């Protein structure tokens, strides 16, 4: 039996929650019929991915990568800044895709009078 120290519990909870978020979002995308719920699923996948990115860049007992007056000499404790910059980009792109997807949903709803994909006849072949 392996011993559960602080490190293991943290890694299981944070990696686990990001994987669970991604899988939940994927489930919503694949199973749900309502288009709004599918868009929500896509943005849940996004959130899980962002959490995973930031968690991979974390350093044990790390501080934020900001050279504020109190932390000027703490270079060795700073967490990886690259994933944080990448996540900043990814959040903005996620917002843009969500906005465009929602506008398409509004357009489909107006055209077919329903937002459920199983009731839109032209989507079946």
């Amino acid at each position, binding site marked *: 039996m392996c011993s559960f120290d602080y*490190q293991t519990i*943290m*890694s299981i909870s*944070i*990696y*686990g929650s990001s*994987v*669970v978020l*991604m*899988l939940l979002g*994927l*489930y919503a995308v*694949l*199973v749900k019929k309502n288009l709004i719920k599918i868009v929500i699923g896509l943005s849940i996948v996004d959130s899980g991915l962002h959490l*995973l990115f930031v*968690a*991979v*860049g*974390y*350093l*044990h*007992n*790390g501080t*934020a*990568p*900001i*050279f*504020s*007056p109190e932390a*000027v000499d703490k*270079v*060795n404790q*700073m967490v*990886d*800044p*690259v994933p*944080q*910059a990448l996540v*900043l*980009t990814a*959040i*903005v*792109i996620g*917002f*843009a*895709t969500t*906005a*465009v997807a*929602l*506008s*398409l949903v*509004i*357009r489909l*709803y*107006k055209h077919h*009078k*329903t937002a459920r994909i199983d009731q839109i006849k032209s989507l079946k072949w």
Partner: protein
Amino acid sequence: MKRFLVIFLMLALGFYLIQALHFVPFGANRMGAPADKKTVAAFYLNETVPQTAVANVVTAIVVNYRGFDTLGEVTVLFLATTGLASILYKRRDEEETERVSKPSSTILQTGAKVLFPLVVILGVYVFVHGHLTPGGGFQGGAIIATGFLLMLIAYQKYHLSHSMLTWVESLAGILFVSIGLWGLITGGTFLENSWFPKGTLNSLISGGAIPIIYIAVGFKVAAELTGVLDILLSTKDDKSASNIQQ
């Protein structure tokens, strides 16, 4: 049947994700000592202060080292706004529609009036101090857009001038690109930062052109997000469609 298939797929995917993450120990030092400069992250941590005099390393990466990427990012945001407007187009002769069906309560209206300037000031603070504290242009722009969202929800007749938004967005974008091009002319690379006095670390005026670029990004993001919210909230609600749905 399909649901079981999906659950099986998810379990398999989750198993392999966990298996892969097992080789990425949480909180371990993967970038080496910053002084060695063996990885990109160590280089950034070591060189940001001497090269740019910016306290926030993430800001230095986003605006300076990967500034071209950020230019592409705000372009994607601009394209999303344009795409949204062209998908949800409205003819000019269609009458102005009311945004919310019921007028909001006096509490919300008064509270929005009080809170709106404070929210905007907080957003401006966040993007002006983007090189010193957590936050920056994108975050401050998003905060300002939430202030406008509050006003749009509270007041049915709240009017946003689209030409004003377009002007703010365009001027901010032109400022960003022209700072980049000026760096290309004087320093030889796009967004070269050394032509501007660096200033001292941890003071408001530090980091050369980085705060100016982030302020431009803040204005641009605020205008774009406000435009998106305004377009989405002012789409006409078809009465016939909502009746069929029920």
